[in-house]
């Protein structure tokens, strides 16, 4: 079974500081993608960043970057220069293959609070 584990239910960071959210996963596949999604209070899930497993270089999107450790099956999200608007639930997700398609399998999420 392909599982996604987020071990930090809640985190807090001060504005302008850096925070890292952890995610581990389990899979027997060799090539795959990993995602971080953000869910603000409006409930709409928004893609933050995506990583391809066969790429050794860690993905970066502006203030967001990942630390992808394939052997350890670890995929953490680093948010630099945190902003109040980063307050949200963050979900790590892995596309599980079933029948003829892929569907995202989500972790339980980390609630991030950015304080002034």
């Amino acid at each position: 079974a392909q599982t996604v584990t987020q071990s930090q239910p809640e985190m807090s960071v001060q504005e302008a500081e850096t925070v890292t959210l952890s995610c581990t996963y389990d899979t027997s596949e060799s090539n795959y993608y990993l995602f971080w999604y953000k869910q603000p209070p409006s409930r709409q899930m928004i893609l933050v960043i995506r990583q391809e497993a066969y790429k050794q270089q860690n993905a970066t999107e502006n203030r967001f970057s990942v630390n992808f450790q394939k052997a350890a099956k670890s995929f953490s999200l680093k948010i630099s220069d945190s902003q109040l608007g980063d307050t949200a639930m963050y979900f790590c997700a892995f596309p599980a293959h079933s029948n003829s398609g892929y569907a995202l399998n989500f972790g339980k999420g980390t609630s991030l609070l950015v304080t002034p």
Partner: protein
Amino acid sequence: EAGVAQSPRYKIIEKRQSVAFWCNPISGHATLYWYQQILGQGPKLLIQFQNNGVVDDSQLPKDRFSAERLKGVDSTLKIQPAKLEDSAVYLCASSIPGGGTEAFFGQGTRLTVV
């Protein structure tokens, strides 16, 4: 580009009543998903469509939940009869097929069963 549209945004019903949710995906997206998100948890896949065919409905409680995607575009998810434990946010998402593609989500419907 218009996003994924869902309605209604909120719904309160009594247990044993029925309810339906509607989703209009992004134009051209062949894959459509319905997720259930219980408070404090990550979304759980209920059903996945490819065009108007079901790809995966292994986690759909088929004794009370049903879903259809007519003409491979809009989709409706129905619960009949509802139970208290069905209280959750129901999220619809769409994407082009493939394991590395981004799924685009609607704002969800918050269902409260009393």
